[in-house]
């Protein structure tokens, strides 16, 4: 099992949900209206007057084999709208209930 943490511009909410649904990933945790900014490029998403955009983030624990698929789809999405901002991080799950 791996954890996939996806942070993305709110504007992409629908497309991200589509990807997860498409891959039959049922379980996830979502935080809406979170702030953040990219390490290298892109506009900060701070929900302020200066930087009005905000992020949503999803943490999904899923089977290992689905991870490359998720990343592939997300990458496609990101490339189609680079300015929106999307990032995903994957790490291992050591144990669950």
């Amino acid at each position, binding site marked *: 099992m791996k954890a996939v943490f996806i942070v993305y511009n*709110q*504007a*992409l909410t629908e497309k991200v949900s589509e990807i997860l649904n498409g891959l039959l990933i049922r379980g996830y945790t979502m935080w809406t209206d979170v702030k953040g900014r990219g390490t290298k490029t892109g506009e900060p998403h701070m929900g302020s007057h*200066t*930087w009005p955009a*905000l992020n949503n983030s999803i943490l999904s624990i899923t089977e290992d084999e689905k991870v490359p698929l998720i990343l592939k789809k997300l990458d496609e999405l990101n490339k189609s709208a680079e300015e929106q901002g999307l990032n995903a991080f994957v790490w291992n799950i050591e144990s669950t209930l």
Partner: protein
Amino acid sequence: MSLYSTAVKKPVTTLMVFIGIMVLGVYSLMFIPVDFFPEFDPPVVSVFTFYNGANASDIEENVTKRLENSFSTLSNLKEIKSSSKDNISVIILEFEWGSNLDEATNEIRDALSRSARYLPAEATEPTILKFSSSMIPIMMFSATADENYPALNELLEDKLINPINRIDGVGSVSIMGGPKRAIMVDIDPRKLDAYNLSLEQLAGILAAENLNLPAGNVKMGQVDYALRVQGEFANSNIIEDIIISNVKGKPVYLKDVATVRDDLKELNIDERINGKPGVRVMIQKQTGANTVEVAKLAKEKIKELEKTLPPDVKIEIIFDTSDYITGAISNLSQTLMYAGLFVVLVVLFFLGRWRATFIIILTIPVSLIGAFIFLFLTGDSINVVSLSALSIAIGMVVDDAIVVLENITKNLEKGSYPREAAIYGTNEVGLAVVATTLTVIAVFFPLTMLGGMTGELFKPLGYIVCITIGLSTIAALTLTPMLSSKLLRLKKWDKKSFNGKLAIFNEKVLGKLDDIYVKTLGYALKHRGLVVIISIIIFGSSILLIKVVGSEFMPPSDNGRISAKVELIQGVRLDETKKIAREIENIIGEKYPEIIMVSTSAGAGDEGSIASVFMESGSYIINFMMSLSSIDERERDIFLISELLREDLSKFPEITKYNVDPGGSRGGSMGGSGGANTVEVKIFGYDFDETSILAEQVANFMEEMDATIDIMVDRDKEKPELQIILDREKMSSLGLNTAAVSGAVRNRINGLTATKYREEGEEYDIILRYDEQFRNSTSDIENITIQNPRGKLIKLKEVAEIMQYYSPPSINRENKERVVTISALVEGDLGEVTTSINKNMDKLDIPDGVMYEIGGSAQDMQDSFRDLGLLLVLSIVLVYIVMASQFESFREPFIIMFSLPFAFTGVFLALAITGTTLNVISLIGGVMLVGIVVKNGIVLVDYTNLLRERDITLWKAILDAGRSRLRPVLMTTLTTLLAMFPLAISQGEGAEIWRPMGISIIGGLLFSTMVTLILIPVIYSFFGTARMKRAIKSVLVTSNNNNN
């Protein structure tokens, strides 16, 4: 959840809410009356007191003064004006605008009851008349006839007046100047004297003969009969056969001493319509009724009823206020349509997308129709004020939607889904949209607090603009994102399609424009000092333009009516006056085909009637009322025709005084419904001679001034009268007294109504009077015989002398002081006229105890300009407050405020170029500009701030913001501007009134936008540099401190 995300997520609800608003609006529209002005009643109450037999100075002393004193404690009273004439005292009480007239009337009644016992016993009880705008006749038509003229009144009464009266909304219908049937008994005094009879005895005999009397009941057998004496004259022929006396056993018939005519009452007034004898019928509406609707129904009814009238009776409409109203309304509706069209074109040009254009345009009907609900709820009408409010608003209601949609598109281009783009795009600009709306409301809301007549006019305008703008913002935050999420798609332009080509072309043009602007801005930033100096020079020199731009109260408007008054030498007989009247009518008919109807009235109507108060009349005075064809059908306006008419009138040697009043509003207590501006000089002082001489001098210098025409002095020359001076000693020795003698003289000269003749339910007076040939010289009067109580006949000359005197025909007072008013029409600059009158007045030698004051439109102008000046200050403060709280800073609003002076530069420039004057309307346009022009500044400065906070360097931030905001700024400015354009160039009915507003807004907005785009960034850069220096300094200081 925020408003816009709810709206986007619940598209059906959103759509339904707005459809609901539209349905309610359209429903309201069906019930809203159409009128010219919003309903407002001038706060004026008049009190009439009749005191027969008293001359002007008696009336002043015994009635007017006493009443005036008792009225002076009334609350909210602004002014007391009075006019004391022979037989009548008129007091006009003017209250502050907005005071409750019902309360005022009650107070007046109280005051009257307190002072009643101080009034002369013979004076009638004072009558209170509340003047309301519904008393102004909505329509007047004339009826002319040839052979049926004598019966015209009865005919009209039965066949026309009563049916019209039954129309819903008609308040009253009244006939003016119609012939009245009467049985005239013309007595030969010599024959009467021969039979030793008096006129009063004859009257008694006739009254005694003309009698029906129930005489009780008689029971005969089983039947109960009512007994009745039937002595009433069965027809008018038998009157002359009434036996009036018996001399030596022989009966004396009435025909032996008099001729009996079943004829028309002798009229002292000659009414003609287009030169034909006729009557005028006036229709008034009920308060709150729809003028246009009532007039339409009345006209239909007249058309229908005309067929039932005899063929020689012709009905013609003299004036119909609904014509002017429908003209003005349809003109404004057209303006509104063109404004809408221009807005569509602008949006389409900038966006190049049909769907986006559609979304934006949709906010127009939504917010405008919402205004109808407001009108319906407040009981207001569709009128020129509410419609022009809509045409002002139409260009602004799209602004919010434009800003929102532009941002949504930008989000779409970044690659988000339409739904998300709609929500987040709206979120980003939501605050700015609300803030710009608030600045507009900050300007228009104070309009609703304006006092005086201007206030009454502009209150609805303030409310309507606030409501439509408010609604448009709500629509921009809900409907626009919802529709964008459904309709907008990001697509590449197809280079072959028409739409694609158009879009690519537009994009090229706009791109070029962006480049040019950024280049100019860059240059300006490098030469900041120069830009500031040039700006100061431009503003400074525009101040000088004020001198070029004239000022006036209200723009004169052509309402297709001219009224004129012509006076001949005092005391001229009606027959002579009539001749001149016919000649003038001929001239009008030949030279002015534009005048389609002339209604002439020469002479005076019944003395002591209320009508005589409103219109000066006398046997030597001719009043003309002319109505002209519709504006589109003629070249010459009422002002030019009036001018030419004055020239014609001046050629008559018989005419001593004349004035021609374009618009016909002068003399009436209400202006505003068209016509020219007036200036008045009021001279206060008790002494008649002193004030009259001064008035003469004032009239003389006004005559010489170029800008004033048609000078009128309201104090007439003293009029000649014959006074009967009674010798009391002789009278008492003959058993007579003043009452008996004066009564007898009146009966013989003026006539005595002995009894009434009844026919078919109508009553006609039977009037006894000396035959005309026995009452037309001084000796005839001297030879009047009076019977004393002993039955002896006495000639008037035995007890009295007849002398010729002069007496003032009327005494006018204002605020309890005698006043003479010299008034003139103003052609040109009202402000200048006032100054030059003041200058001339200084040269005159004004006696002690005499004061003067300048009034008329000039006074109204000063009052209104002062009010509007205050309003301007208030608006600026409010706008500053809104901006300061939006930016959370004192500095940014200050920078943005720099665009204000240039708005006024633009206003003056536009007024000077178009030759328009500075008046209430253009000034209100100026006030509105405060809210409109700062919007551009807000958009520009806000975005520059944003970029600065994103750590972009000052100059780059300014240039980038300029490039990015140029299009929205241009787009919102152009929509507002072009929406005003039809208002500024429109030509039809009533357009003159609103043109100055359109012109000043266009001028101000255009100029200030051009300046804003360059000057505001430059000033921003000054402040930015200063801030940077301070920041650097503080960094240095802290680092120095650390080092220490």
